[in-house]
Structures are given as structure tokens and as C-alpha cells.
């Protein structure tokens, strides 16, 4: 009998954080333009010592303005999707659930498309125009979250199976609309296929990163407060209630927080697939199903996975870039099949 202690949790997270650090270093080093480790270390040192003016302009722009923001984005997106995936798997009591099953990514895609179509007609400042797509996507995500919520409640409470059905149907419907728009307006929507597959190549303003980080901490924190409730929810909703879980409240909090995490991630990076589905399973295999451990380790594991996948996306067919979602799908699908075969019956 070894119940979870804070020390063990901290140790596990620390190891993963170390691996994340290594992944970040690798990501900073590799890219279409080779950077030597020595130059990297030297520039980091200069940056930390405040001697930014001495950083060579060759690498400076690439490292700090292109690679580092991209790595930050990868970390936030990976962490958000993994936490959302873990939460949905618990909420819907379904190991096949991923962050997109309830339609959030389709709604975000539709929001992004509509903002792309509307962009020429709105005369906005350049800074705002760059933000138009993420904002449109986020609004689309919120609208979908609300719609699916109302479709998925019975007698005022979220019902897991109704929610799942509502989400799947909404996702299909919105996808049909997207297909229609993409085939009739193919001129305006060039390159949208990249967004749909998940693409981290567009750098964003600093405020956006703060917003994403704050949003992640808030939403993931809210979910973490229900970690023990989620453990009990997995035993069954009736049992959970009899063991003291306020099931309707937990369902609502987890649904909203996890959907918000998904919406945030999808707004800035498109629909990066398989991360939210597989990382929770891998972490469960290594660390067990206790959500007090699973949630933070899934967040770190997701960050590692997306940083790593993005590095591959940037280097495998350099100088062209693959969309990150293509890499995660190519790696994720076989991995998922492997996990499926391994499952105890």
C-alpha cells in the first residue's frame, strides 16, 4: 500500500521537467538554419546577463524571435491539449475521448474561416488584423462550447452520453459547413489546410502569450482541484455521488475548463491531433490513473511531445515545413494502435 505523497508527485514532475528542458534545448538548436550548441549557450548567457546588444544578429533574430516563441507556443499547446484530453476521458468515462470530440476544434475552425473571409472587409490596424484569426477561432470555440452544453444537458445537468452525442453531431455538422465553404471559396482560403492540420509557424504578439499562459494556469488549475473527484468519477457516477462527489458541479467545471483549454490551443495553432488522445494514455501507463499525478504529468508530457514534434516538422523536409499536426498524426496513430493492443482485457 503506497498512497500518493507530495514528494513522489514532485519527483515525477521534476523528471519530466528535465526532459522538457532537454527537448527545448534540442528545439533551439535544430532548425532549417544550423546553430551550434556553443553559440546557443553563449547567446543564452549573454541574454541572461543582459548583454542583449552583443548577441550576434545572425542567430539572434532566429533564436529569439522565431524559435523561442514557437517553442513557447508548442509547450502551451501541448500542455493544454493533454490536460483537456485527460479531463474529457474522465468526464465522458471513455478512453477514446480526445479534446476535439465535443466539437470545439470544428467550431474554432469555422470561426477562423469566417474571420479569414471577413478580413478584407474590415479595415483594422495591422496588429489587430494579425490577431483576427485567433480571435475568430476562439469565439467560434466559445460558441460551440455553449451550443453543445445546451444540447448535452438533461434536466439541467450534463449527461455524459448525451453530451458525447451532442458534441459528435455538432462537430460533423460544422465540418460539413467548413467543407462547403472551402470548396466554394477556395481562393480566399488558400493555405487553410495547413491551419486545419495544426501549424505553429505564425509568431504572435507578446500579449497573446501572456493571455495563453494565464488561461492555461486558470483552467488547468480549476481542473486540478477536481482531481480526486475525477478519480472517483471513473468508478461510476452513482458511486462517486455516494462517496461525496458533487457530480453536477464537477461535470460543469471540468467541461468548461477543458473546453476552454482546447479552444485556446486550437485558436493559435489549429487542430494538432493525437496529442490529447495519446499522451494521457502513455502517462497512465507509466504513472497510474490517479489524476493528482496524471494531470500535471500529462501537461508536461504533452509539452514535450509537441516541442519534439514541432522540431521534427521544422527539420525533416527543410527548408519547407510540415504542419505539426502531420507529424503528431504520423507518430501518434501507430503508437495508439500499440497502446490499444497492450490494454489489459
Amino acid at each position, binding site marked *: 500500500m503506497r498512497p500518493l505523497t507530495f514528494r513522489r508527485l514532485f519527483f515525477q514532475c521534476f523528471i519530466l521537467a528535465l526532459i522538457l528542458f532537454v527537448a527545448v534545448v534540442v528545439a533551439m538548436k535544430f532548425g532549417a538554419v544550423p546553430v551550434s550548441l556553443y553559440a546557443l549557450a553563449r547567446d543564452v548567457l549573454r541574454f541572461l546577463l543582459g548583454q542583449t546588444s552583443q548577441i550576434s544578429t*545572425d542567430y539572434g533574430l532566429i533564436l529569439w524571435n522565431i524559435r523561442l516563441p514557437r517553442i513557447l507556443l508548442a509547450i502551451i499547446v501541448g500542455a493544454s491539449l493533454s490536460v483537456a484530453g485527460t479531463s474529457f476521458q474522465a468526464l465522458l468515462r471513455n478512453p477514446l475521448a480526445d479534446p476535439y470530440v465535443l466539437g470545439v476544434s470544428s467550431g474554432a475552425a469555422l470561426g477562423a474561416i469566417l474571420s479569414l473571409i471577413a478580413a478584407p472587409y474590415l479595415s483594422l490596424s495591422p496588429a489587430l488584423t494579425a490577431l483576427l484569426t485567433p480571435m475568430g477561432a476562439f469565439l467560434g470555440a466559445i460558441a460551440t462550447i455553449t451550443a453543445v452544453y445546451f444540447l448535452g444537458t438533461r434536466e439541467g445537468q450534463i449527461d455524459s452520453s448525451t453530451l458525447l452525442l451532442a458534441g459528435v453531431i455538432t462537430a460533423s455538422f460544422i465540418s460539413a459547413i467548413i467543407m462547403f465553404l472551402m470548396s466554394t471559396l477556395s481562393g480566399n482560403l488558400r493555405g487553410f489546410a495547413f491551419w486545419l492540420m495544426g501549424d505553429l509557424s505564425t509568431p504572435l504578439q507578446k500579449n497573446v502569450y501572456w493571455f495563453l499562459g494565464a488561461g492555461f494556469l486558470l483552467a488547468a488549475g480549476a481542473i486540478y482541484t477536481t482531481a480526486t473527484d475525477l478519480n472517483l468519477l471513473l468508478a461510476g457516477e452513482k458511486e462517486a455521488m455516494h462517496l461525496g462527489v458533487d457530480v453536477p458541479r464537477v461535470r460543469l467545471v471540468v467541461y468548461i475548463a477543458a473546453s476552454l483549454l482546447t479552444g485556446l490551443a486550437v485558436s493559435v495553432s489549429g487542430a494538432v491531433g493525437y496529442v490529447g488522445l495519446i499522451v494521457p494514455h502513455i502517462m497512465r501507463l507509466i504513472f497510474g490513473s490517479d489524476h493528482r499525478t496524471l494531470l500535471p504529468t500529462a501537461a508536461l508530457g504533452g509539452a514535450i511531445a509537441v516541442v519534439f514534434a514541432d522540431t521534427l516538422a521544422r527539420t525533416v523536409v*527543410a527548408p519547407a515545413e510540415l504542419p505539426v499536426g502531420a507529424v503528431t498524426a504520423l507518430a501518434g496513430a501507430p503508437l495508439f494502435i500499440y497502446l490499444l493492443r497492450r490494454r489489459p482485457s
Partner: protein
Amino acid sequence: MKEIAIARLRFAVCVTVAAMLCAAAPLRAQSASPTAPPSSPFFREVTDEAGRTVRIPQPVRRIVSLAPSLTETVYALGLQDRLVGDTDYCDYPPDAKTKTKVGGAINPSLEQIAALHPDLVLMTKGLNRLDTVYSLDHLGISAYATDPRTVDEIISSSKKLADVLGAPETGDLIAADLQRRLADLRNRLSALPPKRVLFAVWTEPLISIGRDTFIADALRRAGAVSIVDSSQDWPQVNLEEVARLQPDYLVFAASHAESVAPQLDALARLPGWRIIDAVRDRRYAVISEAVNRPAPRIVEAIEDLAKQLHPEAFAEKPEAGKEKPGKEIPPPQHQTFLHLSLDIHSSSPDTVSRGGCACAR
């Protein structure tokens, strides 16, 4: 239990490290630029064709082109020495293939572009992504976007581009030459009714071009009119509709006429296509792929198509003064456009920089 957990953890760590080491392997060798050249203190503000205000350092010494048509235009203006990078798809003229590649038009590598320290990046609204524009803005790299929608706009766009790049005289010369050639065509074709054509971008499924594209405009200049009247840029067309409209000719764009000849023969045997008279009678016109690129070379493709569709307009001797050195007007045949294209583009950059004949096309 503890042993299993630790073993799992060890396994995970080993897999991660091994996988990361594998990531070190696939790296294409790309030459990064040497130390950055000194930045110029002078700027010029222009409004590009997407309505954006662009601050361009003067003079423009290092150009990166993100579209094959813009690469061609730069060469046509004789400024290829300033071109430091282009896309994987920039293949015309052949020298363009030797430039440093920055990736695709839709997914270029920002790092590679930044490493080349360009003064100006050229983009076109019809091919490149809006996101790339924002990314370059974010990095402080100036990007100039063109958006030609008709043949006239292609010419004026090239002229404007020449001015932006600091070679306005060359731009004027080329624009004047192209306009002259188009005017000549207009004269020859004014009395003749336009031929009704179907421009087939793709055959399975059948995709044509919309009425607002520059290709449709090019067809009109060549004395043809597309039977497809759609507001979409790349409409998918119903075969029955084509059969109802029965175009006079089917027009295809290909790099080499010989390579598509077998496919065109096969077309007659495809189910459903035989109901189109033009297919049964093999009334095809094959022109150069230049028609797909909004660059000065499109005028040649227009001329070629005009000759194939209206041979009677070119039967008489050309007037003196209208003839360009090195350019023949041979009897119209399907294969001759090939020779036309090769002759014209063999002119070397030196001819242009001497400011003599406007041979750069």
C-alpha cells in the same frame, strides 16, 4: 510495484533520449548567410497591392521571392543578382533553380528567410498566405505583396515592382513592349469573333478557371472566351454542362507539348468525354505553363494561343518595326511554341543591363 514504475520510467526516458538523437539526423545542409550586411538608414514608404504600407530600405540589395511569377519578373527586370532566395518551385529561368531555397510558397521557412537578411520579400496575394505576411511583419522584415487580377494589372504590377526595386526605367521599357504586343494582337483579332474555349486546369475532376482570374483575362486577349462563367476562382465543372455548351477548343497548359500528347489522346477514350465535339475532333490548343503565372512571360502564351486559335489573323507579313529581334512568327503548329519560348529566353542579363533592346521577357 515500485520496481515496475521505475522500470517504466527508465524505459520512457531511454526512448525519449533515443528519439531525440534521431531527430539530429535529418538535416538538409543549407548555407546560412555570412555576417549580416550593414543595414541601410534610408527607407521609402510605398503602398503595396494588398493595401498595406510597406517601409522598404533603400537601396534594395537583397531580395527574397516567395512566388515563381515574382522570381520570373525579377529576372525579366534584370535584377537577378540581387535575388538571394526563392521557393522550391521557382524554376524559370533555369538559373532560378540555383538560388538558395526557402521552402514552399505556402509554407516557407521563416528561419531560412531571416538567415538571408533580405531587404525586401516579394509575395503575391494569389499564392502566399496571409499568415506569412504577419510573421514577416513581426520579425521586422519588409514584405511587398502584388495582386494582379488581369493581364493589364500584371503589366502595371511588374512596372510598379520595377519602381519599388529601384529600376523604374527597365520597368517602363518592359511594360511598353508588352502593351505594344498586346495592342498588336488586339488589332489583328478585332474583326474576328472570339473562339469559345474550355481551359482545363485538371481533368479528373474537371476544374476550370473563374471569370475574375487573370487566366480568363489572358484568354480574352488571345481572342478566346471561357465557356465557364463562375465567380469561384477554380470551379469544378460538370461534364454535361460542357457538352451542352460545346466549346470550340479545349485549352491546356503544359511545359512540353509532347509530354501531354498521349494524355490528350487518352482523353477521347475517357467515359463521357466523347460527347464533347472538341474532344472527338481533337480540337486542342496546348500553350506554355507561363499562362498560369502572373508574370511578363504570360504575353507569349497569349500570343501563342492567339496563333493557334486564329491562324488566319497572322497569315500576312508583319509590319516593319513591329518585329522583335530574334522573334519569328512561324506557321501555327502545336509544337512550335516550344521553340518560341526557348529562343526568347536565351537572352543574357548583359543585354538588359546595357539598357539596349528590351529583350528581357
